[in-house]
């Protein structure tokens, strides 16, 4: 069984230093529990006395046994060893993973929303800026700085295989960094309770070799492909009428800012922040009745006619 969110092993630069500490504390913890368990059970079995037949207490001499306090000092002294080791190791790991990378080659702005992730690249760079959602592409082997902001409630950014959590708190911009050592798709999830659909607020980090990342970035920079077919044009009209208040499709009049940018919708693998796989069937179901798939989601159900839905889908399917 695979555990995409498991953090007993990792592929990030931070995992390389944190995971050994995690394992160390885990093994110490298990060892301590076993030792104490054995001491309790052994002590009880070795020292116990039977109750009398009448069920009353046996007539035992009650006495002070000498030397009991020694148990405490020896026990505490032994306990101090792993405690202090953990303390020192913790501070060392903190010193290594805590500081942010200097001059990071890539900075990504992530706005956590209810209940999806708005991802911005190239902020402040003329002609380099674009937005996408829920799928974060990064080049392998370089530290990436994340600027985390929220405009609604508190969320927490977490991609376990790449590193620990950083809360996303409205009113402040928290900084974090990730670095993937190997290419791959790494699942993440909101980790701070944020309302109805906290459960369906996943994201994915796609770590790619630099050339592949660059190709992806260039593709994302482009506007949406023009609608050429008649159904595509009708679909765009539906999008303008029904989607434009919240969604944006660059290069068209669809320019909302409250929901995921759809310019290159079909380049992403999931919809609804990891709720459904991104395929035409799921897309239709999602557009028609998002409330059934993700109850409480801010997108209302769209009462589209069959023709409208088919047109819209024909248009969206080309947003590669």
């Amino acid at each position: 069984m695979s555990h995409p969110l498991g953090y007993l092993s990792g592929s990030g630069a931070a995992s390389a230093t944190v995971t050994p500490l995690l394992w160390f504390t885990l093994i110490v913890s298990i060892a301590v529990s076993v030792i104490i368990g054995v001491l309790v059970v052994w002590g009880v079995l070795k020292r116990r006395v039977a109750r009398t037949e009448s069920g009353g207490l046996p007539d035992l001499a009650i006495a002070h046994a000498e030397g009991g306090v020694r148990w405490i000092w020896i026990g505490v002294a032994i306990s101090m060893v792993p405690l202090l080791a953990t303390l020192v190791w913790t501070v060392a790991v903190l010193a290594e993973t805590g500081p942010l990378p200097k001059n990071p080659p890539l900075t990504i702005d992530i706005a956590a929303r209810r209940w999806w992730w708005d991802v911005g690249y190239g902020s402040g760079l003329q002609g380099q800026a674009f937005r996408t959602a829920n799928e974060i592409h990064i080049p392998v082997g370089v530290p990436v700085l994340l600027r985390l902001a929220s405009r609604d409630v508190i969320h927490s950014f977490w991609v376990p295989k790449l590193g620990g959590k950083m809360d996303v708190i409205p009113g402040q911009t928290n900084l974090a960094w990730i670095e993937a050592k190997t290419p791959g798709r790494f699942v993440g999830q909101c980790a701070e309770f944020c309302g109805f659909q906290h459960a369906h607020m996943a994201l994915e980090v796609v770590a790619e070799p630099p050339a592949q990342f660059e190709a992806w970035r260039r593709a994302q920079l482009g506007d949406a492909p023009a609608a050429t077919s008649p159904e595509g044009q009708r679909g765009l009209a539906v999008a303008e009428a029904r989607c434009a208040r919240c969604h944006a499709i660059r290069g068209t009049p669809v320019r909302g800012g409250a929901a995921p940018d759809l310019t290159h919708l079909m380049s992403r693998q999931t919809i609804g922040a990891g709720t459904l796989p991104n395929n035409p069937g799921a897309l239709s179901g999602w557009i028609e009745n998002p409330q059934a798939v993700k109850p409480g989601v801010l997108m209302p159900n769209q009462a589209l006619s069959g023709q409208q839905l088919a047109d819209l889908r024909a248009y969206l399917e080309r947003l590669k």
Partner: protein
Amino acid sequence: MTPPAPAAAAAPPVLRTPEVADVTPDLRERLQAIWETAPGVRGWLGSVDHKAIGIRYMVTAWVLLALGGVEALVMRLQLAGPDLTLLSPEQYNQLFSTHGMTMIFLYASPILSGFSNYLWPLLLGSRDMAFPRLNALSYWIYLASALFLYGGVLVGAAPNDGWFNYPPYAERAYNPGINQDVYALGMILLGISTSVGAANFIVTLFKTRAPGMSINRVPIIVWGTTTASFANLLFVPAVSLAFFLLWMDRQFGTQFFKPAAGGQPLLWQHLFWMFGHPWVYAIVLPAMGMVSDGLPVFCRRPLVGYAAVALGTVSTMMLGFGVWVHHMFATGLPGLSLSFFSSASILITVPSAIAVFAWIATIWLGRPVITTAFLFFASMILLFVIGGVSGFMTASVPVDWQLTDTYWVVAHLHYVLIGINVFPVVGATYMWFPKFTGRLMDERLGRWNFWTMFIGFNLGFLPMHLIGLWGMPRRIYTYPASMGVGVLNMVTTIGSFLFAIGILLFFWNVLKSRRSGAVAGPNPWDAYSLEWSVSSPPPPYNFAVIPTIASRHPLWEDRLQESDERSNLDQGLLLDHGKETLATTPLDAEPDRILRMPGDTMLPFFLAVALTILFTGLLLHNWWVAALGALLGAFDLIGWFWPRRKLFEREPAHG
């Protein structure tokens, strides 16, 4: 001023030196008449007897434990497999929040208040708590706040932002219903109960111990409850303030936690956890005290390292005041401050280790007699250590960045709260039930009870650690199969149902043994502390004469032979001029003065009613109702503080 009216001459002389007397049947009869609660509704609503109040606390807390348990079972059904749809997201969110609120605020602390209320005066050789009416008030307000909060639950306005209720989600913009208003006001109301109860415990400890019971002779549970009470007095105001500010934000447009207008969501987290972490110790330290006092009885020897354990109890709380930020490691605070809080959180393990090794040494150097109570106490040591080490891991900041907000933390906190609170409490019930009722609980059923709870609990919550390590976040109403945690969640659900059966067996045993348990006699366990020197159940006045104490183990002195001094339980100060008990000096417990204790009165009950009306008015924005509640409360307090000659402890100054 005129001299006292002739009618006052009937009141007892204010200054006198009580004589030393033997216990006689005649004396018992007189005291019974003085202390007995009147029958009927008036007596029931008006009783200020700490034993009646203690039992009420326990019964109410157990009812709430059952409610919180049912909430948990419904959640476990929803989580038994991936993508289940038994509950809607909002239903789930209200359930987990209500479950947390119930267990942490309405069960875990009140159950310990119940035990301490019942036991303290008996342990300390006194006749009641220092402030009996305040004690009754503390209970009635607890009941009122429980009804207030559950009133919200019944109308579908349960809290829905978790028990720690972070804004801005708790703010009106995201949470428009009255859910959060009920929670905020209910918590402020409960805070009054906790605060007055804490003040009462502290004064009771320092003023009403029997002569000779110097501070180093009190049972460990007294240390635990006292420490918890100091923490409550210091930090309940922080959380009451936080909830008040939240309510202001929601109702009057203040901006304390709203970032758009310069408010600071993190302010809530600081205020909450500044209270919240000490609170965790407050709901385990008295329970650890139960184990420290209970194990020696069944191991047939005094506790090893009394002084170390007592000081460990206090120092846990001292350190506990400085660890709250470990709930906020992932909020983006600077690394240097994280290091301090990380270190403190790692070092707080030390006083806990002292207790653990003291208990183990007590077993190894004693001769354990295996009773159900002993099984609960001894197994608690293991559960305590598991809950402790999993907490120690979260104290390491970089490790916590992974562990926090996953099921690891859920597993950890259940080992802490069930392992260190529920297990000792059930064990303590087996131990002290004979004192409460005069009858022993069924030992055979007790074994079934213990093993079902122990196996069910570990089956349910041990795998949860792994669920956490595999990355399942807490507080999600469902999870996809791809997360790979379906099987273990099913195991957890099965374990939690087994655990629930264990709790039912416990309730069944209580109900059954109350009627048909074997008659216990005063001291069925041949235990050492004062409460076992009086009949089971104790008479309303507890002690016919105030005993004199010479050691930590008054009933074991002849066998321990620690010194030549002996406690005197059959002869002591005669206090029979009305409801009286003895005040002693804070550290050495030398007789100080006679305390005139108030009689039964319904004033505390009515004050709780008045406060409930006030808070309901505030909730509904009905200022007339609120004003009525405030007015009734004010009248009640006038009655409460009206000078009564029979309560005078000094002759009033004349002229």
